């Protein structure tokens, strides 16, 4: 199995980061593993970490009494989850649950924020990458909101 130091330089999320910056980031990272059904994070919890999935699948879920549990997104191999670590008040608003055996790299949010504050160039570089992922997901969420596949009879407009 490759170490974190070996994984990061080749990962698309970190493309373009210099070696010293990669080492800073790797210093905040650990390998983690989740069994099916285990929660990576829960709604209401304080957002300590973000993850890159090495292998497996994570469901982002919303639960309510009226609708039960609805999966609103899934994150698979190589993808990033958890942005609440970067945005105050650093709080998860959804649940993240491993669907299958999932191994991931977990980045300590407090550690990373600290390093970003000490090194604004690193901070800007991470912000660019996080914004890019959030931008894609927001566009996709807006288009999915159209309920395109539903019957015209079910739609209000």
């Amino acid at each position, binding site marked *: 199995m490759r170490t974190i130091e070996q994984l990061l330089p080749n990962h698309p999320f970190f493309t373009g980061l210099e070696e010293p910056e990669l080492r800073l980031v790797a210093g905040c990272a650990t390998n983690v593993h989740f069994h099916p059904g285990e929660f990576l994070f829960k709604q209401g919890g304080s957002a300590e970490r973000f993850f890159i999935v090495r292998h497996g699948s994570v469901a982002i879920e919303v639960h309510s*009494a*009226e*609708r*039960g549990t609805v999966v609103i997104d899934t994150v698979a191999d190589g993808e990033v989850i958890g942005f609440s670590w970067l945005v105050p008040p650093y709080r998860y608003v959804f649940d993240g649950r491993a669907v299958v055996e999932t191994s991931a790299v977990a980045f300590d949010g407090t550690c990373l924020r600290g390093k970003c504050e000490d090194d604004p160039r690193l901070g800007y570089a991470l912000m660019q990458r996080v914004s890019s992922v959030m931008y894609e997901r927001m566009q996709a969420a807006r288009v999915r909101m159209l309920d395109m596949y539903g019957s015209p009879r079910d739609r209000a407009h």
Partner: protein
Amino acid sequence: MPTASARAGDEVVLDLSGLQALIDVLLADGRTVVGPSVRDGAITYTAIETIEALPRGVGDEQDAGHYRLRERGDGALFGYASGAQSFKPWLFPARQLLWGGQRTADGFTIEPADTTPPRLALLGVRGCDLRAIAVHDRVLGSADRPAADAHYLAARTDLLVVAVACAEPSGTCFCASMGTGPHPGEGADLVLTELDVDTDHRFLVEVVSERGAAVLSAGVPVRVATDDDRSAAAAVVADATDRMGRQLDTDGLRDLLYEQAESRQWDEVASRCLSCTNCTLVCPTCFCTSVRDVADLSGDKAERWRVWDSCFTGGFSYIHGGSVRETPSARYRQWMTHKLGAWQDQFGSSGCVGCGRCITWCPAAIDITAEAAVLRSAAQPREV
């Protein structure tokens, strides 16, 4: 036996013919006397008129998922732990008519159901079941509620209770842990303890209320209790206290259950639980109900019935196309957390009286006292 007069606060003694005389006085008062009897291989609380109907020489063996009657080989009338059901079906029936309605030309009319009190006397109420009645008084009365349950109030009005101390706790009993027995607490009119079945078969009677005293004075031959009678009764209770089948540590139990809401133990017990609702059916304090609206074929006559319900059913928490508590895990957690925890916040006491019926009648042999112990040890910080 010479007849002594009795007043509230006295202790007297009666023999077997005295017990029959007690039943006769209650019957003459226009009451239905409900007491233990053997039926279909179990002790059930049913209408009786003579002491021959009582389970003479019958004991019970109870354990998780296990219930058997046994021959004691003596003449004890109350030599078992408790009936398969409690007295709940008599005060809070499984089906109760609430109102009848009739469609009319411009709408409908409603006729509330009759709430005439049935006038009962309960004979053989154990400490656990006596406390359960007090618990229901709190739940179904209006102290904490916008309205009381009218039918329960009616059944409870003018109720006469003859409690009997338990001499033979069973394998699933834990009344001592819950502070409800083996000696009955408050709420009875008379408290009996059965003594010396083989040599001098008699009952110590604690006359608790004026009404209990009046019943004895209406023609029940009794004599004044002696110190020997009193110490014999105390020995029966002390012995029973030491022979409880189970125990439950209630210290900080509500907080423990609230904190363990996300424990994996709920999934573990749910893998065994069949959601069969037996536990809620036999529990003397469970009170959840639903309503059934029934109409005749023309749709012109309708009735609304109140029926027992259970939080273990899939539809119990149904709103808007789904159930809030979809998984058996969530439902088991609900029942146990409510019974041993949330009840405290709602009604100021535990909902459990330690009768053990939920353990005895669970086909999967799930034991609420064992589950509580597992949760408690799961909550301890682990040694590193």
